[in-house]
């Protein structure tokens, strides 16, 4: 057997152990990404072969945390793709105003940058107090960071630019205070945010959402899992509810395409028919 075939086998065994020992099923994730991440973890642990991680995952429960942490590292920003937030502000928010209570689900919120972006936008539109945002991720470590709402100060320049391009109505620095090297976001932003663990691979739908935001999560899944997750969103959305996906994601290629219509194609905003 060649070395790269052995490596595939080692990865299969590793992922099987993660599933059997802890219940996290990564078998329907895009293989190339997950392989890179496990390889990186292997190197960081000072090893050459993925198989060196097998005893660690079996007998060191803390190592699972380390693995999960590595599994949810992505590049994210506040008001990432500002034009999406602009469209949200100008076209989606007016349609949501008619509801006495607005339910929003941020699925796969990771470290929460977009959740706070949403809270700021709702605040400026006078809707935050009528809203409830469910921010979910399968990774407790990411959720803790999201809940804390503390981000490196060095990122604020980029976030401020994004905020302005997204049509921000105030001054971005009004929403955080500086503590050392960090920007600490205002507690008032999170009073209507519920941070909670939810795994898109196996957990159930949420009820009566007016808006579901899930950006740059589906690209990590294979098509079977993408379809399952789009099904969860459909079942979670109320009549004429909105779904926002990442720039490269779409409801097309899934059997659920018929349930959604395109609301704004460049911004990847969809709406339940």
């Amino acid at each position, binding site marked *: 057997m060649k070395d*790269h075939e052995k490596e*595939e086998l080692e990865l299969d065994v590793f992922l099987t152990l993660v599933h059997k020992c802890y219940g996290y099923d990564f078998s329907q994730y*895009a*293989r*190339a*990404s997950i*392989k*890179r*991440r496990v390889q990186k973890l292997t190197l960081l642990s000072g090893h050459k072969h993925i198989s060196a991680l097998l005893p660690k995952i079996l007998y060191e429960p803390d190592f699972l945390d380390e693995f999960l942490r590595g599994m949810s*590292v*992505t*590049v*994210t920003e506040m008001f990432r793709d500002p*034009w999406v937030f602009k469209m949200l502000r100008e076209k989606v928010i007016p349609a949501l105003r008619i509801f006495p209570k607005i339910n929003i689900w941020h699925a796969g919120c990771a470290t929460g940058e977009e959740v706070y972006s949403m809270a700021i936008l709702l605040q400026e539109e006078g809707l935050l107090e009528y809203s409830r945002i469910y921010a979910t991720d399968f990774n407790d470590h990411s959720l803790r960071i999201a809940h804390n709402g503390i981000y490196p100060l060095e990122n604020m320049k980029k976030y401020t630019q994004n905020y302005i391009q997204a049509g921000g109505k105030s001054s971005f620095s009004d929403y955080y205070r500086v503590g050392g090297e960090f920007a600490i976001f205002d507690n008032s932003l999170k009073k209507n945010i519920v941070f909670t663990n939810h795994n898109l691979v196996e957990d159930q739908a949420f009820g009566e959402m007016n808006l579901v935001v899930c950006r*740059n999560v*589906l*690209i*990590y899944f*294979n*098509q079977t899992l993408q379809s399952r997750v789009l099904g969860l969103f459909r079942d979670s959305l109320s009549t004429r509810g909105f779904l926002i996906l990442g*720039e*490269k*994601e779409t409801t097309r*290629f899934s059997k659920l395409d018929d349930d959604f219509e395109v609301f704004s194609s*460049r911004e990847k905003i969809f709406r339940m028919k």
Partner: protein
Amino acid sequence: MARYEAIVIGVSAGGLQALSILIPSLPENFAVPVLIVLHRKAERDSFLEEHLDGLSQVKVRVAKPNDILEPGKVYMAPGGYHLMVERGNILALSIDPPVCFSLPSIDVLFESAADVYQEKLIGVILTGANSDGSDGLKKIRALGGLGVVQDPETADAPTMPESAISVAGADHILPLDEIGSFLTEIIRGT
């Protein structure tokens, strides 16, 4: 069985010009898909692909997740996303952290493609001012694939081809204007 099933190309500084020479020299009936990482900023538009498509006989597109690779088509990694090949000739994107300061990264594309195609892959490194792609080309060659590097003397920025030659070695070191005809011959011959 065909000797080669796909070509991956990595290019950075000076890349638009280099691709404007290389891609138009490929024939319309080119028998394998071509995947390209050009270091670029994240942007919403696809002017670059449209420009190259207009010059070329092969079809040039921005790579999308779930695309199934077709011969005679060129797939370019969008700015701000890594491009990878999955088993079953399916494309995938990710926004993992930069590799070699690059997003998209050449190493990420080359290493994933090497896993899928092994000895049936050709990797090409063109002009560039950093060392992204060297590790990827090394893996391609280690799994039996073919490594082609632009002659650094013909490169706008020689660092990337020089790095590839020193880290990975190369089966062929060619001037830019010969790479298109070389690939055409080798693919026709398979």
